[in-house]
């Protein structure tokens, strides 16, 4: 059988959900960051798939994807820096233990 748009969409949906699951369930901040990147990658797949199948003439989706990658990189950089600061503060990056402020 040939690959259709739906396959890509399903793949991206699955990836997105895995990422979401990880982001909500993991306890290590770095892993959560990675999961978020995973979600963004899933979105990129959707974008490119759509662009390829819906509007083959234009490259809108691909361009969008490039920008997403850039933003994701920046986000990861800031994220790592912040996690670093947290680690310096309290030799630990388990997000379930990070609840100084509540209620």
């Amino acid at each position, binding site marked *: 059988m040939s690959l259709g748009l739906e396959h890509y969409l399903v793949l991206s949906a699955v990836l997105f959900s895995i990422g979401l699951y990880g*982001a909500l369930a993991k306890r290590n901040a770095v892993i959560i960051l990675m999961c978020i990147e995973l979600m963004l990658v899933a979105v990129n797949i959707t974008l490119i798939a759509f662009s390829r199948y819906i509007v083959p003439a234009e490259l809108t989706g691909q361009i969008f994807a490039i920008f997403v990658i850039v933003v994701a990189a920046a986000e990861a950089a800031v994220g790592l820096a912040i996690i670093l600061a947290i680690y310096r503060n309290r030799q630990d990056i388990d997000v379930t233990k990070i*609840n100084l402020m*509540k209620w």
Partner: protein
Amino acid sequence: MIPYQFIWLIFLLPFFSFLIIAFFIRPFVKQESRIAGYTLIAALSISLALSVWTLASVMTAPNHELPVPVINWVVIEGGVTLHLGLLVDALTAVMLVVVTFVSLMIQIYSQGYMRGDPGYHRYYAWMSLFTMSMLGLIVAGNLVFMFVFWELVGLCSYLLIGFWFHKPSAANAAKKAFIVTRVGDFGFLVGILILYMNTGTFDIAELHELAITGVLAGSVLTWGAIGIFAGAVGKSAQFPLHTWLPDAMEGPTPVSALIHSATMVSAGVFLVARMFPLFENSPAALTTVAVIGGVTAIFAASMGLVANDIKRVLAYSTISQLGYMMLGLGTGGVAIGIFHLFNHAFFKALLFLGAGSVNHATGTFDMRLMGGLRRMMPWTYATFVIASLSIAGIWPLSGFWSKDEIVISALAQPVLFVLAMITVFMTAFYMFRAVFMTFGGEYRGGGPEAHDSHPHESPNVMVVPMVALAVLAVFSGLWNVTGHFGALLGHGETHGFFAGLFHPFTQVLPWLSLILAGLGILLAYAIYDKKWVSAERLGRLFRPLYSLFLHKYWLDELYENVIVKTVLLRGLFGSFERFDSRGVDGVVNGVASSAIYGGRALRRMQTGQLQLYGLFMGIGILAIIFAIFFFG
């Protein structure tokens, strides 16, 4: 004919004096100088002159209304337009005169009463603002503009009742007053919105037109009117929301005088009168007004019978008189209700000033510690008695005329009529109880901080205003002897029940009420002056009633229970003392405590776990999606 700019001045002048006092005098002038008082007094005298002029020109104006060009305040494209307009008719003019005059008298009096108080400048600053907002409320031409000043009045009363905020009781009384009246304001706001939603206008004159022509009718009108009446109930301390007024005694006595006579509480009555065409065209609303009024009248009077603090007695009498006014509005119409307000303003202000000067001399408000002041303070005594006779409704003093009109018009509803009659008796009784306990018998030593063992008359600056008010308390009633007042306010309907000074004696009702009042006075005389009957014996005789009145129908106890409940909640959740909700009263306290309870319960949701937050977001998204696919 008065130029309309001057009408603007009437309520702008006190505002200017507020600015001057707050920003120039208070920071820069030293404590001793009394220039702040003179500033306000000057402003008010001019306002008074202008108000009188306004009244004069209103009387001559065609159908008693002055045209005032409007300024567009807020224009919302495709939406509403708010005019910064004034509505100047007979009602406005009369109220303007009353407020400016009474306020002026009280300010003069305060020069004596407040001298040397550390907050002297602050006092006059707030007083200016207070008077300004009341005047603004009176001249306001649309409901939003009115609501602004309505809120300002509430705010100022909060500041003035809590004037001596170092007394916790004062701070709490202030908060209580503020929040209880806010409950009423909420009703007011909803009423405004209902009316706006169905008419698309906030303009009072237009609303009148719509109501009279019957465009605005049915349940919409009824609910709108009742909503507005709720606001009035809150402000003028009618039955369910009356609890704040007796506690509002914590402020300086002149403030109480102003609040009780012309400014704060009369705002509610004025509001109903101002919107009267709406009430007139919805019988249900009108009946509500009448019933609430009648009930309040007797209810408050009965509590006045046993209070021992002279200011509390006066407070209950105020509530009861306001009940009368509402009753008058509900059964008779604008003219009757407002006429009573008009007279009441003078003698009630006088009574409070008298109480103030008594306190000035004896250093207490507890009547059991006074007595025998008749000889020591002749002026105070004379004026106080005049005011009491007037409030008791003795011919030919002012109280007689307005009260009898109300009673007569109440004949329509027999039950209310009976209540009114009983109230006449009670009023006479408790007023003269106060008179005899304060001035009769021998001096009983005064309060702990009494100035000296031998009290003496107050300085002239305090006596003169009292005399001036006394004169009006005698004669102000004569205005309507032949129904001029009624013709002026009544929009055509002529409410002249009496055709002359001596005409009442040709009729049954006046006799009846006079006899009842006389009996009340006689009883008070017998018990408290001549001691023919001992109060204690009487008290024991009517033990259940007595204690019922003394404990204010256990209303406060009822509220206490709510408070107790909240205390329990606090106990459950611990460390609650931080969240001060003392002084918030009754229902309000219930609401507040339940809200606090909810807050404390809900905040557990905020666990500080960011992943739970994320989960919450996800669930929210799904909830929205499903909501759309199943309900959308």
